[in-house]
């Protein structure tokens, strides 16, 4: 038996030609001058992402920065009686930490510069790898930040501003968070939040929290639903028919009478009309026919059935409360309405209209991601929603 052969992941490292041959000399010079700076930037970014080897060190540094902030910012209302041993100790530690951090930063910068100066100069590949790392980290930071704050128009900006103001008022006026009571503690909390935001733990936690239905409901209540044209209103079948009729978004066909007996049988009439409808739909032809003819209006009703994948990969008709419901219809004006079960339409056909199709025509499923963006016609692990359309045609003799 032949052992399976595994495909390899795409990496760029194999495809690179020696860069030294292709890079102009001034660029090389500039890059090598930039090298220490790049190292420092890379280290800062890794610290922000907590991807260094020694993550407890980052934590310790974070604590030291907090103590320094505590020391450097004099509280607004300093009460002398409050200064007990612990406060004095903390202030002393803050002083120590401030000086230690300064020394530490200076030491680090010094060692970076000294080591790059004393060791062999970096190769172009070294620099490029470093640049790629920096770019990758920046990319990750940007992506993670944008996951939380996407501000693409003024409305969203306004929403964020109101929310932020609301939170500030809650914190400062009503002391919602027990720890925050002055600028100093606010600063410390903000610092800690920012520094731990990009850890994999917090990112994972946020993703897990995003799974909660109630959180999403609250979020979309605040942000408004994803679909721009989606209206949460329900449209009754009759209203839908009236909307189509008033908008005249039906197709008119002319049936030439060749044999009157043909028209007596409803079956043949239907078949003729379906033929004509499909012709008309593809190539609208406005030919005047002199032979005696009858004019019919044919209306096509389209209902979209939506389903969402829940646990265990089971497709159910239950969708989320802020998104389209199980059945939706698109009105002639482009708005999406919730709809009844299509089977209710058959009993609600308006007067003078007759069914053209025997049954509902169901299209195959189209699969999409969590936001109903179409992915393809096959189900996969990245598909969480699916849609298909039910169509049904009715006709009437065109009133004169």
């Amino acid at each position, binding site marked *: 038996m032949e052992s399976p052969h595994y495909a390899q992941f795409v990496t760029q*490292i194999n495809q690179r030609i020696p860069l030294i041959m292709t890079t102009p000399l001034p660029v090389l010079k500039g890059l090598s001058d930039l090298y220490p700076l790049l190292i420092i930037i890379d280290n800062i970014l890794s610290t922000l992402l907590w991807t260094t080897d020694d993550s407890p060190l980052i934590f*310790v540094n974070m604590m030291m920065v907090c103590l320094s902030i505590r020391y450097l910012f004099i509280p607004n209302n300093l009460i002398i009686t409050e200064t007990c041993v612990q406060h004095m*100790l903390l202030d002393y530690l803050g002083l120590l930490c401030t000086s230690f951090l300064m020394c530490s930063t200076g030491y680090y910068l010094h*060692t970076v510069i000294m080591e790059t100066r004393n060791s062999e100069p970096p190769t172009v590949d070294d620099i490029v790898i470093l640049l790629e790392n920096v770019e*990758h980290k920046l990319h*990750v930071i940007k992506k993670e930040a944008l996951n939380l704050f996407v501000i693409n128009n003024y409305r969203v900006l306004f929403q964020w501003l109101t929310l932020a103001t609301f939170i500030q008022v809650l914190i400062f006026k009503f002391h919602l968070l027990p720890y925050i009571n002055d600028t100093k503690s606010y600063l410390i909390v903000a610092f800690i939040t920012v520094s731990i935001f990009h850890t994999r733990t917090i990112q994972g936690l946020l*993703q*897990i929290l995003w799974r909660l239905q109630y959180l999403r409901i609250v979020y979309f209540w605040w942000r408004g639903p994803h679909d721009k044209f989606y209206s949460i209103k329900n449209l009754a079948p009759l209203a839908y028919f009236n909307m189509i009729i008033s908008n005249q978004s039906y197709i008119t066909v002319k049936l030439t009478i060749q044999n009157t007996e043909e028209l007596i049988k409803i079956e043949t009439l239907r078949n003729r009309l379906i033929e004509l409808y499909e012709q008309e739909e593809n190539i609208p032809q406005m030919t005047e026919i002199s032979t005696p003819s009858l004019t019919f209006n044919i209306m096509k009703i389209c209902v979209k059935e939506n389903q969402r994948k829940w646990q265990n990969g089971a497709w159910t008709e239950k969708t989320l409360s802020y998104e389209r419901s199980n059945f939706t219809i698109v009105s002639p004006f482009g708005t999406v309405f919730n709809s009844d079960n299509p089977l209710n339409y058959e009993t609600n056909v308006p007067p003078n209209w007759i069914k053209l199709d025997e049954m509902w025509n169901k299209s195959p499923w189209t699969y999409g991601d969590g936001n109903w963006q179409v992915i393809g016609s096959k189900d996969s692990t990245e598909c969480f929603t699916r849609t298909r359309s039910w169509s049904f045609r009715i006709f009437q003799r065109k009133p004169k």
Partner: protein
Amino acid sequence: MKEYFRLKYIELLDSMLNAEELLAAFKDIDSANDETSMVDDDIEENSNSNKSVWNKELLTKMASSLVNVSLTKLKNQQQQQPGEDDDDDADADFLAMEELQHYIDKTAINLKSAGEKPFVALFLDKLISRLVPEPLPAREHILPDVVDQQISVALLASNVHKLSEKMENVFEFQDTIVRVLTWRQPSQMILILLLFTKICYNPMYLILLPLLYLSLGVIVKQYNTKYSEGTHSRQSHRGKIGKSLFNDLFKNDPSYNTNGNDSNTTPQEITHGMQVVLNLRDFQNLTTSQLHMMDTFSHFLNETAAFKDERTTTLLVVGLLFSCIAFKALSPFINWSLLCSGTMWIGAIMTHPKLLPRLKQLCSSHSQVKQKQKQEESSTSVMKYDVILDQQPSARYVEIFEIYRQGLIPTTWKFFIYSTSLFNLTDEYRRAQTPPPGVKDLSQVQAPDQWLFDPNSKWEIDNNIGDWASDRNLDLSLDKEFLVDSAFKRRRLTRRVLKKLS
């Protein structure tokens, strides 16, 4: 026909098993009786006969277990076989005959193989259950329905095997802890100290931190390994550039350490077998150190705290009580959070490998001067006169009966024995017509264990004969200090004993 054979065979096996069990039980009872009777015999005889009986017993028990196990095995196979052939038709007689033949062959051949347990393990189990008294003393269980399992060699062996595999993680964890505590990873040490401080100031963190760890450290980590693809940052071949002042200052470089046992072996070299041996070694070290610790503890309990050295223990008690009072008096003035965390920080910093040698140096230079002074002091006064040991030892009285036998003439009495037994008419030795345990000479009588005869006392004849006779509910005739029955007379000797002190 096959059924018939099978049933007969099983019946036979059953009866054999039963008989064998009975035999074993009988032996057990027998030996138990022997032992009880032998206790009261002469000591030398006792030990000799006991040994021989024990050997014999062991042999019979081993043999019986051997037979039992093979019979059980056989029976098990018998029972397994028909289960497989259950869906045979009754009509096909000759087929059944064939199968019978086939299956007799099978039992003959496969006697050793197959079955739930290997033969040796089963044999050992049976042997153990025979050798050990039938109901083993049970352990206490919290849940009432938990029952102690019977001892099984196979289970024990598999448990030890599994445990040695599981212990790997424990030892790795121990390694990590040691690495952290010796400041080889200073940031983790500081982190632990910070968390400890936090716990000191708010004990609720004892609950919060494990919860946080479980949610963020374990579950979210699992989520990340499942869903996120990780960072794709590429490593260049150059080493890390730039140093951290923190690590340079506080890190204890392990290359300074001389115990280079671990540094020689890289992880790739360790094979599975080696890992097992390694684990066993660690396990051995662990048990050794544990035993050592328990020894130290028991030494403290049985020697230092048990008045072996009267003065030390007395001073220990007084010192402990005084420190209790002092601590209690001090406690309202102590900021516990600060004290605990401060002690921890200072302890951790003091034990830093870079600082400790210097501190020791400092201390030793300091203490050398003091020790000289002390030595001068102690040479002048070897004995300490601070504890007065005039405790009265507890004193009790022991008794022995001096028994005389009637001679041929009723008025002549001949000394018979010194015994703890009264040897009256209802005495069991008297009824068995054997002499009671005792000695011929009074000087051979020993004081009870942990007691000594008071050297200032002598054996005294108890003249108050009416009292001790009525205490023992004896209605016999009196003759001076003697209590007389048909063939023997005895008198009671008492002597004072003192409790041994060491």
